[in-house]
């Protein structure tokens, strides 16, 4: 579910589309997504319906499409706050879920991640990660906890 190749710390982006494109490209490189056209369309449509900046310095762009091979979360913390609609964000969680091959386990982890994002302590762990390894470790422990 989480992949160290999909964690990035202190990134710099000029626009939200640049950030989304970067993370989708990385998801393609790590074979979580093949092609990516449908997935990008799904993510952009979601953003149009309403911005996925949910407050708390977080944006969670997400989409579900057939070209997603396996559920994934690509995470980036930012060097400087980025405008995301009307909000400023410091952390981006790009989520992809396959259309057909959804597993309950992955959905449970995503739900657990979502709940944890509401906790200040968890957000601070993410924001204070100094490198990719530390950020990955914060996420990895969600898989073992999973809310049970």
């Amino acid at each position, binding site marked *: 579910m989480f992949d160290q190749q999909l964690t990035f710390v202190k990134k710099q982006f000029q626009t939200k589309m640049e950030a989304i494109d970067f993370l989708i490209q990385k998801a393609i490189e790590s074979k979580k997504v093949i092609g990516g056209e449908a997935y990008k369309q799904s993510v952009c449509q979601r953003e149009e319906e309403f911005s996925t900046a949910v407050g708390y310095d977080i944006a969670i762009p997400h989409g579900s499409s057939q070209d997603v091979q396996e559920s994934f979360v690509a995470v980036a913390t930012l060097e400087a706050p980025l405008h995301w609609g009307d909000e400023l964000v410091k952390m981006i969680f790009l989520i992809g879920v396959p259309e057909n091959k959804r597993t309950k386990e992955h959905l449970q982890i995503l*739900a657990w991640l979502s709940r944890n994002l509401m906790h200040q302590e968890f957000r601070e762990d993410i924001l204070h990660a100094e490198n990719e390894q530390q950020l990955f470790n914060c996420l990895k422990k969600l898989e073992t906890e999973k809310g049970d």
Partner: protein
Amino acid sequence: MKIVGITACPTGIAHTYMAQEALEEAGRKRGHEIKLETQGAMGAENEITEDEVETADVVLIAVGCAVEGMERFEDKIVVEIDVADAIKNPQAAIMKLEEAVK
């Protein structure tokens, strides 16, 4: 007071669960008993029982799409809010419920 309700969003992957967590925490902080059913990609979870509906003072519907089982709340005070607003400002949502039962 006792609050029951539903959270849901179009994809049912993230907002549903963020809203549940944020609202339950805000509700408890203000001294209320609160239980929210999530209608997400995994179907309905943490389902509210008939008995819980019966004894609830108010029903909170925090959604961004149509939800199932609204007929359960026919005779109750129902407050509907946008799921994104609930995540951003859960305290305000809980205070709106307090107003509604006054």
